[in-house]
C-alpha cells in the first residue's frame, strides 16, 4: 500500500481555479454585449402597436418591410415616415424590386408561400400602410402579417 502513497513527494501544487468564474463571466458579458440577433440594421423607429389576437410568424418564408419615422441617428432624413426594406430606405414605387431581391434569398420551395411581415411604428399614418398594401396587391403578394407586441391597447 505504501507503494502508492509515496509519489506525493515531488508533486506540483494544484492549479488554482478560483479565477475561472471571473474569466467565464467576462466572456459571458462580452458575448452579451456583442451578439446582435437582427439581420438588418434598423433605420426607422420601431415601437410596434399591441395586439393579442396573434399568430406566429413563420420566419423561413417571411420578408420584412419596416416603416416609421427615421430612427435615432438618422434624423437628417427628415421627420416623414419612411419605408425600409433590407438595409436601406425605399419608396413605394421601388417596393417591388426590393422585395423581389429578398424573395430570391428564400428557399426555392417556399418562395411561392411568401408572407410579408409589416413592422410599422405605431405613430405612422395608415395612409402609408395603405400605399404599401396597394402595391403588394398589384404584385400579387397577398399574405401579410402585421407584427405586434404582446398586450392589448385597451389596458393602457
Amino acid at each position, binding site marked *: 500500500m505504501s507503494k502508492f502513497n509515496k*509519489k506525493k513527494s*515531488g*508533486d*506540483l*501544487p*494544484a*492549479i*488554482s*481555479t478560483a479565477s*475561472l*468564474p471571473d474569466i*467565464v*463571466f467576462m*466572456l*459571458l458579458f462580452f*458575448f*452579451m454585449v456583442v*451578439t446582435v*440577433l437582427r439581420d438588418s440594421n434598423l433605420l426607422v423607429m420601431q415601437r410596434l*402597436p*399591441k*395586439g*393579442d*389576437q*396573434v*399568430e*406566429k*410568424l413563420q*420566419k423561413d418564408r417571411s420578408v420584412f418591410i419596416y416603416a416609421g419615422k427615421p430612427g435615432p441617428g438618422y434624423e437628417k432624413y427628415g421627420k416623414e415616415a419612411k419605408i425600409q426594406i433590407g438595409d436601406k430606405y425605399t419608396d413605394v414605387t421601388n417596393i417591388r424590386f426590393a422585395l423581389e431581391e429578398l424573395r430570391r434569398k428564400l428557399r426555392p420551395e417556399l418562395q411561392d408561400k411568401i*408572407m410579408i*411581415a*409589416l*413592422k*410599422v*411604428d*405605431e*405613430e*405612422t*399614418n*395608415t*395612409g402609408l*400602410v*395603405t400605399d404599401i*398594401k396597394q402595391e*403588394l*396587391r*398589384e404584385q*400579387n*403578394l*397577398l*399574405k*401579410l*402579417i*402585421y*407584427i*405586434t407586441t*404582446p398586450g*392589448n*391597447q*385597451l389596458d393602457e
Partner: protein
Amino acid sequence: MARRATPEVNAGSMADIAFLLLIFFLVTTTIEKDKGIARQLPPPIEQDQDVIIKQKNLFIVNVNKNDQLLVEEELADLKDLRQLAIDFLDNGGAPSGTPDYCNYCKGKRSPESSDNPQKAVVSMQNDRLTSYKMYIAVQNELVAAYNFLRDREAQRLYGWKYTEMKKGIDEGDITGSRADDIQRKMEVVQELIPLKLSEAEPKKSGS
C-alpha cells in the same frame, strides 16, 4: 517508472461554467419571437364589380383622422367594439324555416341586424391620417370577435377551442393524421363563422 503524476485540475467550478453557458443561451434565444395579426389581401381586380350586400348584413366601422370610432353610424368606444361586433355577427336574424336560418346563433335575432354569420360582412374604413396604432387596435378587436365565436362553436362541436387547435398546428405540437383531423375540424368551424372583414379604400385625408 519515473513519470510524475500531474496534479488534477479542480473541477469544482465546472458547474458554474455550465450555469453561465445556460444563462447565456437563455438570454440570446428568447429574442426572436415575432407575432402578429395575419391578413389575406384581396387579389387585384381588373374592373369594378358591384357586389350587392344588404345594409343589415353590413357592419361598418369607421375611424377618422383623430382616431375616433364610428360604428354603425354611432360614436363608439374601442372597448365596446368587440361586443358590438360579436352581437352583429351572432345575431342570426333570418326567420326560422328559411334557408338562411342560423341554428347555432345565440344573438338577439333582430330582423334589423345580420341574417347569419355567413352573410355578415364587417367593413372597416379609415382615413389616411388615422394612426397605425388605432388601426391595429381596431383590427385586433374585430379579429377577437371572430375568434370568440369560432372558439364557442369549436367548443360546442369538438370540446376544444379553435384558437388552441390553431396554436397546436402552428407550433407543430400536433402532427400526422391527428393534424389532418384537426385541420378538417378547423375548416368546419371556419365554414360556420367565416372571416369576412373587408377594408374599404381610405378616404383622402381631412374628409
